[in-house]
C-alpha cells in the first residue's frame, strides 16, 4: 500500500504519496497550495526566469491523482495561484483546468496569496464544512476535524527532507502540492504549537510514510 490511511473525526482519509488527501467515502480529493504561476510572477517582477514548466508539472500530477481516485469532488485549500495576476492562466492551461473541473464539484478555498474571487468556475468559500470536517486555508487553534494547508510542512527521515502531512486527533495539515514551493520544517515553533503531542508526519515521495512528527528538544 503506497498511501497512508487514517481517521479524523470519524472520517476515513488517505494521504496520497503525491501530497493530495483522499476521502473515499465522499469521493473527495483535497489539495493545497498549488501556487500556480509562480515562475511567471518572478519574471514579471524582474526576478529570475525559472523553467516555465511548473504549471504543467503540477496539473499533470493533479490529473493523475484524479484519474487514479476517480474523485467527483475537489477542494483546493487556497493559494492555488501565486497571486491574482497569475490566475490569468494561458489558454492551454485554462483549458486543461476546465477539463479537470468538468463534471466535478470544485471548491476554491480562499488563501492568503489569492484571497479574491478568481474568474474560473466552481464554488468559492472562505471555509467549507463537509460532514464532520472543516476545510480552511490556515489552521485555527482549538479547531476539531480540521483540514488545512498554508504552512508547506516538511520533515526529515533517514537524511531525506520531504513535504509532509501533519496529522493529530484534531486536524490534518496538507503539504504544498505545487512544484515550485518551499517548505517549513515541521519542527518549527509555529507548527509544533499547533500539533498535539503524538502527532504524525506523513512524508510524501514514492510512498507515503508515517513517522512521529519530529520536534525540537524542549518543545514536548
Amino acid at each position, binding site marked *: 500500500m503506497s498511501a497512508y490511511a487514517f481517521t479524523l473525526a470519524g472520517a476515513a482519509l488517505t494521504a496520497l504519496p503525491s501530497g493530495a488527501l483522499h476521502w473515499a467515502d465522499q469521493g473527495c480529493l483535497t489539495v493545497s497550495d498549488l501556487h500556480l504561476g509562480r*515562475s*511567471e510572477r518572478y*519574471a*514579471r*517582477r*524582474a*526576478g*529570475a*526566469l*525559472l*523553467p*516555465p*514548466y*511548473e504549471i*504543467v*508539472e503540477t496539473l499533470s500530477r493533479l490529473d493523475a491523482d484524479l484519474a487514479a481516485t476517480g474523485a467527483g469532488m475537489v477542494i483546493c485549500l487556497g493559494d492555488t495561484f501565486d497571486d491574482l495576476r497569475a490566475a490569468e492562466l494561458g489558454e492551454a492551461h485554462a483549458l486543461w483546468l476546465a477539463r479537470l473541473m468538468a463534471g466535478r464539484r470544485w471548491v476554491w478555498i480562499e488563501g492568503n496569496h489569492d484571497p479574491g474571487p478568481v474568474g474560473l468556475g466552481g464554488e468559492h468559500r472562505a471555509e467549507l464544512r463537509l460532514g464532520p470536517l472543516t476545510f480552511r486555508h490556515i489552521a485555527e487553534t482549538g479547531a476539531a476535524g480540521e483540514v488545512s494547508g*498554508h*504552512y*508547506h510542512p516538511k520533515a526529515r*527521515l*533517514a*537524511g*531525506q527532507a520531504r513535504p509532509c502531512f501533519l496529522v493529530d486527533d484534531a486536524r490534518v495539515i496538507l503539504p*504544498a502540492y505545487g*512544484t*515550485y*514551493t*518551499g*517548505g*517549513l520544517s515541521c519542527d*518549527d515553533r*509555529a507548527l509544533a504549537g499547533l500539533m498535539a503531542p*503524538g502527532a*504524525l508526519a506523513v512524508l510524501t515521495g*514514492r*510512498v507515503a*510514510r*508515517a*513517522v*512521529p512528527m519530529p520536534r*525540537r*528538544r*524542549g518543545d514536548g
Partner: protein
Amino acid sequence: MQPLPAPISDWFASRGWQIHPHQQALLDRAGNPALLLVAPTGGGKTLAGFLPTLVELTGGTQAGLHTLYISPLKALAADIRRNLTVPATEMGLPIRIEDRTGDTSQARRRRQRADPPHILLTTPESLALLLSYQDAPRIFAGLSRVIVDEVHALAESKRGDQLMLCLARLSRLAPGLRRVGLSATVEDPDAIARFLARHPDPCAIIRADPGPDPDIAMLETDTPPPWAGGGGRYAIPEVLAEIRRHRTTLVFHNTRAQAELFFRDLWMANEEGLPIGIHHGSLAREARVKVEAAMVAGELRAVVCTGSLDLGIDWGDVDLVIQVGAPKNVKRLVQRIGRANHRYNAPSKALLVPANRWEVVECEAALQAVKAHDLDGDPRGPGPRDVLCQHILIAACSGPFDAGDLYSEVTSAGPYAALTRAGFDACLEFCATGGYALKAYDRWQRLMRRDGLWSLRDPRASRDIRMNIGTITDTEMVKVRWQNRLGGQPLGEVEEAFAATLTPGETFLIGGQVVRYVGLREMALEVAPAPGREPKIAVYSGTKFSTSTQLCDRILAMLGQESWPDLPASTAEWLALQREVSRLPAPDRLLVETFPAEGRPHLCAYGFAGKAAQQTLGLLLTKRMEEEGLNPLGFVATDYATLIWGLDAVPDPAPLFDRAALREGLEGWLAGNAVMKRTFRNVALVAGLIARNHPGARKSGRQATFSSDILYDTLRRYDPGHLLLEVTREEAMRGLVSFGRIEAMLDRAGGRIDLLALPRVTPFAAPLFLEHGRVPVEGAARERLMDAAAERLMAEAGLG
C-alpha cells in the same frame, strides 16, 4: 636597459638593495601589451610588478587611475597596500594607493568611484562589480596598467575566467592598457600566458631564478599515524617541538575543520604557552585581522592555517612550514613550502605530517616529486558559459550594448578565444528569455532589444544581478557570534547544513574555542563559551582536492617495490601484510576485493583515480548493481579506492567494470544524482538563474526558497537540451564526476581485473571503514531501509 628615476634608485641604494634581473626585465619591457613573470615565493614578484608603475608615476602628472592590481585574496590586497605605501612614501612619490574589496565601507567605495586613486588594489569580484556601474567608462578611461597577482591560482577556477572577461572589457574602455601577470612556479607557463593575454596579442614570459632546492622531509614521530582519518593530531608533541625549535612556523591543513581540531589539541598541549594563532577563511574578519597583525609584528611563534594563507601575503620571518595531511598535489606543496624563508636565494624548510597510513605513502611520493622538480596539473578547459552568462548580465547593468561588439570583446579573452557566435548567442538568449524551448517569457524578458541594443527590461533587475556577482559558490554559511549579553561580536561562520543539526545546548568548535549554541537570531547563531566541554565538530566542507594523476602514478610505482626501506616501519609492515593476505595494486591491473564485514557483503575497487573519480565509480557501480538487483546500500570513496556495501553479495564483479556499460550508466545516471544536482546549483547561481541567499535579504520562515533540485528535475523532464544542463554536464565531467580519470584507469588496467574473494576485511580496505562521507544509494534497498526506520520510530513511539 631602462634606468631607474632618481627617487627610486636612491631608495634602493639607501637600503643597500640591488634590483633583481627579473625586476629589471619587467621594467625594460614595460611597454609590452602583456607579460608573465614566473618567480618562486620570495622573489620580489610584487615589487617587480609595481616598479614600472612607480617609474611612470614619478613625474606626478597623472590624474586618476593608472594601475589596477588584482589579487585573489582580500587580505592580500590590504597587505600589498601597506607594503607599497611604505616605499612610495619613502621615495617621496606623489601617489595615492587604496584597496577596495567586499570589506571596504560603502562611503569609501562611493568616494573611490567619484575620485579614483592612482593605484587601486582589488579582487576579481570587486572589479566585476565596478564594471557593472554606468560610470565604469569614466573610472577606467585613463587606466594604463593592470597587474594580476597569483595568476596561476586564479587560472584554476572560474574566478579567473570572470577576471579575463573583465580585462577584455577594461581593454575596450582603455585601449592602451598593458597587462602583467605574476605567477608562482607552474608546470605550463605557456598556458597561463595564453590565458592572460588579450587574444591574439603575444605575451612574453619572464622567468626568475628558481632559487635553491627546498630542505624537505617527513616529520618523524614516536606514535605511528592512525589507520584512517585526517588531522594528524597524533603528531602534536613533535610539531610542538619543531615550533619551539624555530622562529616562526606555519602549520598548513587541508580543511578548516582539521585546522580547528588540531589547533585546539595543540593549544592544550602547549604547556609553556607559546603564542600560537589560527587563521582560516571561516573565521570572522576581526579574528583574521588580529592574527595577521600579530604575525606581521613578529609576535606569533606559529599559525595553524589553511589555504587562506596559500597565497603570497608577506609574513616576514617564517622559517618552517609544516604540511599536515597529504598535499594531494605537488605544485601546491611546492608553493606552500615557499612560504618558509621568504627571502630570495635561501632554501625553504618544510616538514610533511601524513595523517594516516595511506598518506605516509602519498607524502613519500610527493617528496620524491618535489626533489625531481616534477610538477603536476591538468590542462584548463575552455571558459565556462555560466560565467559568460553572468558577464552578459553585468554588461547589461552598465548600459545598453550591441551583441556583435560584446561578442568580439568576449573572444578577446584567452579562455573564450574559441567561443563561436552561436555559443555566445545561446548565452545571450538565456540571459534575455531564459532560453527555454517553451517561449514563455516573451512579455517578461530580462533583457530586451531596443533600437538594435540590448538592455535590461526592468532596471530594478540590476540590484539582484549586482548582489549575485561572483563565481565562488561555496556551501551556504551561517554567521556565528557571541550572545548579545556577551557583546555580540562575530566569531566566524559554519555551514548552514551543520547549523541545522544543532539543538540549543550543543557545543562545537570555532576559532579554537568550544562554544555552546544558544539560539538563532537574525540569521546568526548565537553562542556562549563552554570551556572544557567536548565539542561537536564544526563541519566545514572546505575545498576537497583529488590526489593528482601524477602522484597516484608514483604511489602505484612505489607499491611495486620489493621492500620499502624509505617508509616508516609501521607503514612498510602494513604494505607487506596486504601483499600477504591479498595483493598489492599495480599500475597495469585493477585490483577488486570482495569480503563480508559488519554482517554485509562488501566490494573494494582500488582504482587510484583520485577522490572525485573514485566517487563517480562508486555511483556508477552501485547504479549497475541496482539494475541487477544486487541491492547496494551505499559506498565511500578515497583517492585510492571505492568501498561498496549492500544487502546482497556480488558473485561476479567483472562485468560491472565493462567500459561501454559504465559509459551507458553515466548517461543514465547523469540524470538524477546528487553530484549533478550540486553542480547544477553552482552553475545556476553563477549564471543568475537562482539567487544567493543573502543574510538579511533572506525570507524568513515558510515558503522560503525551494531547492534548486526541483528546478533541475523540472528542466530535465521538460527541457533536456537547456543550456544550463549542458554546462552542468561539461562541468561535472571535468570536476566532480572526473569520468576522464576513470577511463584513464580502465586504459591502464586494459581489462586485467584481479578479482579476489576473501574471508575478511583486508589491510588496505580496513581504513575505508573509518572514512567520512559515506554516500547512500537511492534505490530499492534504501526504500527498504526508510521503511524500516519509519517502522522502528513508530514502534518506539508506541504507534506501530
